[in-house]
């Protein structure tokens, strides 16, 4: 269980990005953090990743050395091909190429990039670059996968496809997923849990459980359950915005 207790982050100069965040995230769950731009979602993710230290509260139960991270940009090394980019986390851990190869090939196969292992990022489409970034994040078989609006820059068709692929990946690997997004629809489609954040300083406004089917597909996207959940999350999000405006 990943537990955040009263977590806050204030930057020198007084800017408070997140404040008093309490959150418990069950192993194997898929949690989306939804909120408006600039509400500190990304800051919260960085705190969970251990890239920044919280200035208040504490974070417990982070699986050390078992965290994968996907940014909004693919953030690939332009000088290296897809294979070498995916190899990076294993290489930094000291794993030789030969030993890493089966893991890399498996990760590439899972995101459908096996045929593009020798391509350089420049030669790939935006969606394929993001797939490469995801392959890199899962190649270490992390227990916790953190994603910061990974599909925000993609067109809707590509995003829907990647949503389905991500869910398939999540079911297969069973990692805990924390997914930051500003899209209500995306969060409802993907998640088992949704946490709604208020504008800056970001606090958790409310939480939702999405009791959708285990396997989600186009049918789920048009189901009553999905639409009701979207409505509920949207209305809470509006409330969160209004509360902070007061």
């Amino acid at each position, binding site marked *: 269980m990943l537990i955040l207790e009263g977590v806050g982050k204030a930057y020198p100069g007084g800017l408070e990005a997140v404040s008093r965040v309490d959150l418990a995230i069950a192993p194997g769950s898929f949690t989306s953090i939804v909120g408006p731009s600039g509400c500190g979602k990304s800051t919260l993710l960085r705190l969970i990743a251990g890239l920044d230290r919280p200035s208040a509260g504490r974070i417990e139960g982070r699986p050390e050395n078992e*965290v994968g991270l996907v940014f909004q940009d693919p953030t690939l*090394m332009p*000088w290296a091909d897809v294979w070498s980019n995916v190899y990076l986390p294993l290489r*930094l851990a000291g794993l030789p190429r030969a030993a890493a190869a089966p893991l890399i090939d498996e990760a590439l196969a899972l995101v459908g990039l096996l045929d593009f292992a020798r391509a*350089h990022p*420049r030669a790939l489409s935006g969606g394929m670059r993001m797939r490469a970034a995801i392959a890199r994040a899962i190649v*270490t078989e992390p227990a916790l996968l953190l994603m910061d609006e990974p599909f925000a820059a993609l067109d809707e068709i590509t995003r829907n496809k990647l949503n389905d692929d991500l869910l398939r990946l999540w079911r297969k690997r069973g990692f805990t997923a924390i997914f930051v997004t500003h899209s209500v629809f995306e969060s409802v489609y993907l998640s088992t849990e949704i946490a709604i954040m208020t504008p800056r300083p970001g606090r958790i406004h409310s939480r939702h459980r999405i009791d959708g089917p285990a396997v989600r597909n186009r049918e789920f996207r048009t189901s009553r359950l999905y639409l009701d959940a979207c409505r509920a999350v949207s209305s809470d999000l509006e409330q969160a915005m209004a509360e902070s405006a007061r």
Partner: protein
Amino acid sequence: MTRYLPLVVGIIVLALWEASVRWLDVPKFVLPPPSLIAEALIANLPQLLAALGETLKLTLLAFVASFLGGLALAILFVRSRLIERSLLPYAVVLQVTPIVAIAPLIVIWVGVDHVERAVFILAMVVAFFPVLSNASFGLRSVDPGLADLFRLYHATGRQRLLLLQLPSALPALLAGAKISAGLALIGSVVAEFVAGSGEATGLAWRIVESGNRLEIPRMFAALVLLSSAGLALNWLISVLERRLLRHWHGARSEA
């Protein structure tokens, strides 16, 4: 088509030059026509090429030394603010002091019996700074997301340097190398000029010598070789740049 434009301009200028020198009857020790320069170039080719070889050898040695030295110092700078704070001002002093002004001193110190040492040192002094400043800039221009990733996976300092900082610095480093190669040639020439008679055997000395003897066509011939050498150096590094950076272009500008 436009790639041949410089060539066309060059031919037109040469033709105008040749024609006007002949029509106006300009003495050949003031401005020789291109045809005479070509003649002098062919007549003196073995001697001039030997001199060019001498100058190029020292230029390349100095370039390689300044490249490695500049890169090494830049790595130190990026690792330690303290070292950068203490040494950077002196590197700047070396950079802003005109090389012509330091040259006599260096020649007196090390060049009286060994001109080539003075040439090497002076060429290195001028070629050093562009590598240092470009490398320091390049080593710091790391994608912040990638830097985060290296931190997430607990990369060692060595891994960060070899797998992240040096590759990230490559474009800036090559740009610095291009400037620095040109400057190394300038440094060699200045040193040969200042060292003057006797020991110097490089191309710049041939220019001084020809000037003293009013052998202006030979002087121009030496000049042509010197410019060609500079162009060749520049071209060589451009080719290297294109090869090494062929995967980069476009990768950063797009989202």
